[in-house]
């Protein structure tokens, strides 16, 4: 029933082959070192480059969403804007408040960026292209994610500024609250694949029934889990509409208010890297990692698939940022505990049902598959509708009118 489809090998494995060729042509004692460097350096180069691309994409996209042009001055259509930004942030004065805790203030952005980079270690960005194939890859990812909270606290506390402290408190409270739905929605995938290794989770999904891949997102629990995962990921990376920790209109920039110049750029970099990393994990868990959705598209190299999906998710992030206004603190917490947590539990139950329902019934695989799909969809949709009813009870939604404006 499930068929693994062989890819067009040469283009797919070009980077893996290149690495082996380079390692083979280095003298023996340095082979380990060169191998490690060749694993690390692409990550350190590619993802910041993607950060640069994303900043200009985001600014242009947000501009268009607001019926503006966006940056269009530096180079054709403003594509060299990131270079201008880089030059600006590098040449700006690095200001440290006099009463700041200098050591911690200095360390905070470094710790943040370092942990953000570490998260990429377990992401399979292509076939045979996982930097570190850990047996507990997903666990590693969340453990590293936990360390970023400490870095955020270091930044907020060491600046000796009430806004930065408030921002850090908000950020930590939000990160802890949304880590629970983030992890719980991943648990459903882990339950089904029976492994914590990111590589094997992707391998499980890179099979095809007919022409359609076994991506988790094609199952009812997977779809719901993916949506919940991405919502939690948005909150986890402090992206709008969950950008309370850095709400410009309230606490100016939150925990990195007292950072300027290159350190500020590092915070920005870390924020985007976290976004890429958590999107990458979402791709790994739900969107089949580097695999193609249809077997007839498998000739496209796996790393193109991964980065294509990553770009699609980034576009989604930008779209949501351009659409939704910032939440209030109580709305944020209510949403986490009253909606996200119950729904992730429902997703886990649905995944359990999926696991134990037979895929084929009465000799017909197709009918069995459809029945299983519908039952699991019902398990997710029923509680969702009930929860929506409960949450909307007593809330009258009407068009807001303004007394003085207009």
């Amino acid at each position: 029933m499930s068929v693994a489809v062989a890819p067009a090998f040469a283009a797919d494995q070009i980077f893996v082959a290149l690495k082996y060729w380079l390692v083979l042509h280095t003298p023996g004692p340095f082979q380990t070192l060169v191998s490690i460097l060749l694993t690390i350096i692409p990550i350190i180069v590619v993802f910041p480059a993607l950060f640069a691309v994303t900043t200009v994409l985001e600014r242009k996209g947000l501009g268009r969403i607001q019926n503006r042009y966006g940056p269009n001055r530096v180079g054709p259509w403003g594509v060299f804007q990131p270079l201008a930004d880089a030059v600006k942030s590098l040449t700006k004065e690095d200001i440290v408040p006099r009463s700041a805790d200098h050591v911690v203030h200095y360390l905070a952005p470094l710790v943040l960026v370092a942990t953000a980079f570490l998260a990429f270690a377990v992401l399979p960005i292509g076939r045979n292209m996982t930097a570190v194939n850990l047996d507990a890859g997903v666990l590693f990812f969340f453990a590293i994610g936990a360390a970023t909270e400490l870095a955020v606290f270091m930044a907020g506390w060491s600046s000796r500024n009430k806004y930065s402290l408030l921002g850090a408190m908000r950020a930590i409270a939000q990160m802890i609250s949304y880590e629970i739905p983030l992890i719980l929605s991943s648990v459903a995938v882990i339950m089904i694949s029976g492994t914590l290794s990111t590589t094997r989770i992707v391998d499980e999904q890179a099979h095809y029934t007919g022409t359609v891949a076994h991506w988790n997102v094609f199952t009812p629990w997977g779809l719901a889990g993916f949506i919940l995962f991405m919502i939690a990921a948005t909150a986890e990376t402090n992206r709008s509409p969950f950008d309370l920790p850095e709400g410009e209109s309230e606490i100016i920039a939150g925990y990195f208010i007292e950072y300027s110049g290159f350190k500020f750029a590092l915070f920005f970099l870390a924020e985007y890297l976290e976004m890429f990393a958590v999107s990458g994990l979402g791709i790994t868990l739900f969107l089949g990692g580097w695999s193609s959705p249809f077997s007839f598209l498998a000739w496209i190299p796996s790393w193109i698939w991964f980065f294509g999906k990553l770009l699609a998710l980034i576009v989604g992030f930008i779209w949501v940022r351009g659409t939704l206004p910032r939440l209030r603190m109580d709305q944020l917490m209510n949403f986490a505990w009253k909606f996200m947590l119950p729904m992730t539990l429902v997703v886990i139950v649905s995944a359990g049902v999926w696991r134990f329902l037979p895929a084929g019934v009465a000799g017909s695989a197709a009918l069995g598959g459809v029945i299983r799909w519908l039952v699991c969809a019902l398990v997710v949709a029923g509680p969702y509708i009930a929860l929506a009813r409960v949450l909307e009870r007593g809330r009258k939604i009407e068009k807001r009118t303004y007394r003085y404006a207009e």
Partner: protein
Amino acid sequence: MRMTLPFLILAILTLAGGVAAMTLRRLVHCALALSVAFAGLAALYLNLDAEFAGLAQLLVYVGAIAILIVFAILLTRGGDSDAEKSFSPAGIGGAVIALAVFAVLAWATETSGIAHPALVTPPPESAMREIGLALMQRYVLPLEVIALMLTAAMIGAVILAVRERRNPAGTESAERPGLGA
């Protein structure tokens, strides 16, 4: 046991973190140094191929305990340094106890099989799977009991917090009327 370079680096890091946590003046610095010690310990576990223990150490201690300590410091005293000296006579007693614990642990390690590498069984190929199966099959009852206890503790904490808040204004106002609506 052979003292490899990574082990030495991590051991020094862990010990330095611990010593710093004991000697630094500012409470927040102590908490940060403590999390360095936690992270060093986690790295030591990882160095010993105990992936689950290492990552759980990182997740629980650096991700949760350190944050909890930091939050407690922030919400109580604002992390200000206290002028008093960090040395006190009770420290001597603490040092004695620490030495005693260390002696017992060293004795236990020396007499166990770990001191004799020939007796050590190789780690299982897929430790994560083994741990998962053990937790879900053999130790499922203790696991459930712990889960129940933690849930009870959490509900208790919520009840305590809610009772405090209900006093002044009744229920919190989650919905605010729209301007001029």
